[in-house]
């Protein structure tokens, strides 16, 4: 593009021909105030605050910097007295409509307007149009528009009704310089808004993710909803964004596979008696973990849904674990993290009462029991007994708004009613439902609890019946981080030992067809799961491809003539086995 020369406030500069003046000035570090400009949107030129003086061949023009294309030889004055006079007046006019908008008042102050001559209006919307434009130009939803004209102009949705085209992306509120647009939240409390999922459509899965790359969440990305908005493409300097990318199936040939598919937390809604989702301030252990996180919604402060500091918190152990109705097994990690929670609460909220409801304290690891003892010293209340019910049935005004936990304290043999401000449910770790499918895929198996079964609990704890397939972590069963790390190390080294060898011996149990006995009936062809058997029409015989044959022997059993046999499982061998075991 052609470069032209221009002068801004007396300083010579260069800019690409027809660049918007605002940009040309910005490159020089000259700030021109504007209220309706956004770098991602087409210049709209309506606030007129950016009006500057331009001299072209001795003719003076007043132009808006945001959309005026610079040409060679122009002389620009961005802060002349005339310009300042104009801005002052425009700001006064704006204040006459929106007298209490901070961004306006700040700018007005800059221009010496303290007592606007036309008074101060009460509106919030300065009609800059950013919301309307972002909705149409970027989002593509076209929900917002201008209505009426002249001083009656407003921004709204069609017929002032909630639009079903609105995808509640919040872009309008995001660009609004005055805060006139607020997203109404139909749900209540911080918990619904708690960022359990990604905060934005583009996110990095979690801070420690490897590789630490941003991904676009198709479900919430505006582009995939409306076909517009390519803002990320525009701003990405590396030009790394491609919305056309599709999921790809990549085939990778490997010799060993490690299954480390993890676990999921039990759905707390199943346990109706604990009222999750019914009452505010009942959260899962993971919710509580997020709440405690310095990067979480409350910046690590423990607050109730109403934003108050809780005075008492109940922690329920074994929710769904060690329970005949849900999971018989112990989830192993709950006791320790529940203790950690109690410790964190004690540390963060002075004087907060913490009640841990437990069946048994299982502090089995190194230093664990000591930690438990420390908490006893810290004054955490431990109630041995399963919580029967959590509700909000207050018996007196002091209990209003509290959660009532009912449990039998088996230590002292009484039923206790403990009102608390917040409850944390330490939910069971359960196998992912997908594990079943994976077990088929990888020819390993899952136990009745859904976790993968190891080949041998003692002798081959990371192997599966399928050679070359290893398991590690919570997909094999509930375990804590040290155990997972240990198991993963073991699985990796088991896999490495195979890789080191470089080759694997396959089972030599493939089947063969004795040609002279084959009558060409092709029954074997029909039953083979691996299309390893081909029928030769010319010879009227079938034969087995050794490389494809996995040695199941199905064809052998199907062959009426006994032409097919399986190495190591010949009929004679089986008959001999039968003879052998029945000889005793």
């Amino acid at each position, binding site marked *: 593009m052609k470069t032209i020369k221009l002068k801004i406030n007396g300083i010579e500069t260069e800019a690409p021909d027809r660049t918007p003046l605002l940009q040309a000035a910005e490159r020089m570090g000259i700030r021109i105030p504007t209220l309706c400009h956004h770098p991602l949107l087409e210049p709209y030129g309506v606030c007129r*605050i950016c009006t500057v003086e331009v001299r072209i061949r001795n003719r003076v023009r007043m132009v808006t910097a945001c959309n005026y294309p610079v040409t060679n030889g122009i002389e620009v004055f961005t802060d002349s007295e005339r310009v300042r006079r104009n801005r002052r007046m425009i700001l006064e*006019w704006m204040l006459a409509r929106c007298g209490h908008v901070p961004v306006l008042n700040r700018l007005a102050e800059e221009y010496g307007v303290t007592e606007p001559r036309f008074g101060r209006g009460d509106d919030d919307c300065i009609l800059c149009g950013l919301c309307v434009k972002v909705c149409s130009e970027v989002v593509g939803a076209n929900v917002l528009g201008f209505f009426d004209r002249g001083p009656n*102009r407003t921004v709204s949705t069609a017929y002032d009704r909630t639009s079903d085209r609105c995808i509640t992306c919040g872009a309008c509120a995001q660009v609004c310089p005055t805060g006139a647009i607020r997203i109404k939240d139909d749900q209540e409390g911080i918990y619904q808004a708690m960022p359990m999922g990604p905060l934005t459509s583009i996110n990095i899965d979690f801070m420690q993710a490897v590789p630490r790359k941003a991904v676009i969440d198709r479900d919430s990305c505006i582009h995939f909803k409306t076909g517009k908005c390519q803002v990320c493409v525009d701003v990405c300097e590396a030009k790394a964004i491609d919305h056309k990318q599709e999921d790809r199936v990549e085939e990778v040939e490997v010799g060993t596979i490690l299954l480390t598919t993890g676990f999921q937390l039990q759905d707390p809604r199943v346990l109706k008696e604990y009222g999750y989702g019914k009452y505010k301030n009942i959260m899962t252990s993971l919710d509580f973990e997020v709440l405690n996180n310095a990067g979480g919604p409350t910046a690590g402060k423990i607050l109730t849904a109403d934003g108050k500091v809780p005075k008492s918190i109940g922690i329920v152990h074994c929710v769904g674990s060690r329970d005949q109705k849900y999971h018989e097994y112990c989830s192993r990690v709950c006791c320790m993290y529940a203790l950690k929670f109690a410790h964190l609460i004690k540390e963060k909220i002075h004087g907060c009462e913490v009640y841990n409801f437990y069946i048994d304290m299982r502090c089995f690891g190194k230093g664990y029991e000591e930690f438990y003892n420390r908490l006893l010293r810290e004054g955490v209340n431990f109630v041995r007994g399963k919580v029967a019910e959590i509700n909000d049935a207050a018996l007196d005004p002091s209990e209003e708004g509290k959660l009532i936990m009912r449990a039998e304290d088996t230590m002292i043999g009484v039923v206790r009613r403990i009102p608390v401000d917040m409850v944390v449910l330490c939910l069971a770790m359960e196998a992912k439902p997908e594990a079943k499918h994976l077990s088929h895929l990888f020819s390993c198996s899952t136990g009745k609890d859904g976790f993968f079964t190891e080949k041998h609990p003692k002798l081959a704890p990371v192997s599966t019946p399928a050679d070359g397939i290893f398991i590690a972590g919570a997909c094999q069963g509930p375990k804590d981080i040290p155990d997972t790390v240990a198991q993963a190390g073991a699985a990796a080294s088991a896999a490495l030992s195979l890789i080191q060898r470089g080759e694997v011996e396959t089972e030599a149990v493939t089947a063969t067809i004795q040609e002279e006995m084959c009558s060409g009936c092709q029954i074997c062809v029909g039953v083979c799961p691996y299309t390893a058997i081909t029928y030769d029409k010319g010879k009227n015989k079938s034969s087995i491809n050794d490389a494809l044959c996995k040695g199941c022997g199905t064809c052998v059993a199907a062959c009426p003539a006994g032409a097919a046999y399986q190495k190591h499982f010949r009929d004679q061998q089986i008959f001999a086995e039968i003879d052998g075991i029945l000889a005793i």
Partner: protein
Amino acid sequence: MAYRAHCLICTGTGCVAGGSFNLRKTLEAEIAKRGLDREIQVITTGCQGFCAEGPIMIVQPDGVFYCRVEERDVPAIVEEHLLKGRPVKKLLYTPPTEKAPIPALKDIPFFAKQKLIVLRNRGLIDPDRIEDYIAVDGYTALGKALTQMTPEGIVLEIKRSGLRGRGGGGFPAGIKWETCRHAGQVRGVAPVVICNADEGDPGAFMDRSIIESDPHSVVEGMIIAARGIGASEGFVYIRHEYPLARQRLQLALDHAREFGLLGKNILGAGMDFDIEIREGAGAFVCGESTALMASLEGKLGEPRAKYIHTVEHGYQDRPSNLNNVETYANVPLIILRGADWFASMGTGDVKENPWNGSSGTKVFSLVGKINNTGLIEVPMGISLREIIFDIGGGIPKGRKFKAVQTGGPSGGCLPEEKLDMAVDFDSLTEAGSMMGSGGMIVMDEQTCMVDVARYFIAFLTEESCGKCTPCREGLKTMLDVLTRIGDGKGRMEDLGLLEEMGAVMQDCCLCALGTSAPNPVLSTLQYFRHEYEAHIRDKKCPGGVCKELITYGIDPAKCDGCHACVRACSTAAIMGEVKKVHTLDVHKCIKCGACIEVCRRDAITRT
């Protein structure tokens, strides 16, 4: 078939409202009854311009001009004039300054000083018949343009004629065409030709009249423009409030298409061009070129910054040539008679540079406190005095002239000392007003200039699209200040404030509506500052208009006790016996002015 006489009945909107269609029926029936229907033909024509005197009928070949003709006058006209050859005296026009009626149209001052180019066919042809237009050399210019001229030659001819846009801006049409043609060629995008018929100024009806009386002249002008620019598509953006004009234009387009003057291979000369009518929804701002094109595209009718010109990137981003109705209507005669002929009329030598003067004629709608309201076409350079006093017949009731407002709502008000000023684009601008589209509102001594300014600012506030801050908020605050002054609550510093606001609006508004909007205020402040001061300092309204500042009274010297005012007063503020001087109770008076309307002796005072 030859007729010995023709009765030309005006069917402009004004006369139609006066019943000219019924008049036609009655006349035809009467003629038939007398067995004259083979001798005399009744023709309905477009607007004759003298709307104040409608319904109008002209009898040719005598050239007798009848005004305010009613159905009951028909037998007399037929009996006296058509049978016996004696013009019916009581229907003839008598100028307010004269005693005797003037029978012949050519002798009526209203017509005598006019120079008809755009309105050349008014009252002569039936706008619904293309044959009539062709009979008066219609489409001859198109023939010439298509067969004897190159497109470049057409553009050059227009450029040399000095024709400047009649829509208000006064931008030379030839230069616009040239730029548009060039943009189309450089970008390889076919340009479009657009006719702005969104006449929105209050009191202006030039474009409507042109279309209603001679739609083909506009069509022909557009085709020639398309030929010059290289366009194959044209639009007429007409306002919804002009149903008759739209209907006539549609008929004209249909006929032109039938005659091979529109569509494929026009006149066999290998040119393809067609015109489509698009209706606006009545937003004043849609007369602005960018807003008009946005509206044409089906978008919100809002202007945009014109740093990128519409001649290069306009309708659907194509090079777009936008002229108004009157501009196009000028084109056929320029092509037919040549640029020199056109340039010879008006001011300045425009042949080398169209910016040098104003050539040709201009159509004005002359309204307000003037005797001969109507549509006039005058050569550029004529003085305001000639227009107002010779053509317009002066101020009614012998009142004093105070000001004339030109250029529509955002024009300025010019005082008496400017009456001898030549009317052309540059002089008007220089005087703080503008040519605009040709509205001309005359005000007499009973007009309050603050009220006038307030009225126009109120109109503009209403019509502002509200897109940019200075126009939306500036007009509103300006209106507040003017209202405050009119209510007698003004402060002297308000005058400075108004001037400052006006200056900022001129600097900062997005489109011409906004930048020209302060004109009524600034021009009245310039020429009639004393009236503002009277409002603020003396709490008086010299025009006797601003209700808060006036009181009604009865001049005992003039009152003859006719009792008419008592009957008119809705609040019983006037009392008095018949034939005796009446009195007025100022506490009951709501200053509605009903008494003034009925008082024949001008006895009601406003002070």
